[in-house]
């Protein structure tokens, strides 16, 4: 039986780490992963867009489109709770 061959995209991460403390990079990754993406790079590939809605005062992600077309909206301030920090994944390319 032929198995479906998935062509690797150009931007596959090489490693993944789990953060232990909160910072803005963790917050960014948390917001994308809540919506079902690894990070901003995968979001841009899947949604075929370069534009990500962000809050103007601090640059946090404001709105994302999920894979099924629904919208997720995020707060102006930190959303990632302490207990989710070590469940967030930080990818390196």
């Amino acid at each position, binding site marked *: 039986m032929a198995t479906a061959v998935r062509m690797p995209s150009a931007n596959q991460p090489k490693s993944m780490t789990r953060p232990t403390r909160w910072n803005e990079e963790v917050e960014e990754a948390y917001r994308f992963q*809540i919506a079902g993406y690894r990070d901003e790079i995968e979001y841009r590939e899947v949604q075929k867009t370069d534009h990500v809605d962000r809050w103007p005062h601090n640059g946090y992600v404001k709105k994302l489109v999920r894979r*099924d077309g*629904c919208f*997720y909206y995020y707060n102006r301030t930190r*959303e990632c709770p302490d207990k*989710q920090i070590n469940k967030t994944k930080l990818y390196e390319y």
Partner: protein
Amino acid sequence: MMKTKQQPSCTNKKPEPPLAGAFKERCTGGTSFKKFYERGDFPIALEHDTKGNKIAWKVEIEKLDYHHYLPLFFDGLCETSHPYEFFARQGVHDMLEHGGSKILPVIPQLIIPIKNALNTRCHKVLCTTLKVLQHLVVSAEMVGEALVPYYRQILPVMNIFKNKNLNSGDGIDYSQQKRENVGDLIQETLEAFERYGGEDAFINIKYMVPTYESCMLN
């Protein structure tokens, strides 16, 4: 010898007045939020596996008709059962966060749902509604001032519960940390009303809640 007929000893108890029930919780009956939610009229998707306590919107919030949806979501604040309570609370939060100038024209239509939610006298509903009011006054410009004419409809219940604080001596009141202490929440809400309500806010608050002291003048 005449026997005097003894009068039966009457207790002379005064009939007690019935309880007014100022603090008693009142049931609201079905809300229109519940009815519309079950009909599927809301542009929100039900999630079972989100870890972030978010609701997924099928339509962009910026394109929603706030005159129709925002009062409905506010009506759902009276609900206490899952998932109505969660969707109403989170839906109001998202709409206020991203409403901008669309919120101000809808304020008059929000007063009745806010009043109904406060009139339930239910602890959980009170806490949710007070937090929503604090968010409402900061959500857009002039909203705080637009609420001033409606203080006489929404502040009486706050006057009743303003002193509902737990006297635990030297114990720790965990409800303060979780922002579920009604007395403290009312104080925070009234201070937010005063900060964002303009010049006439304090005198109007003082008229309805005489024990409130200004946080700006002193």
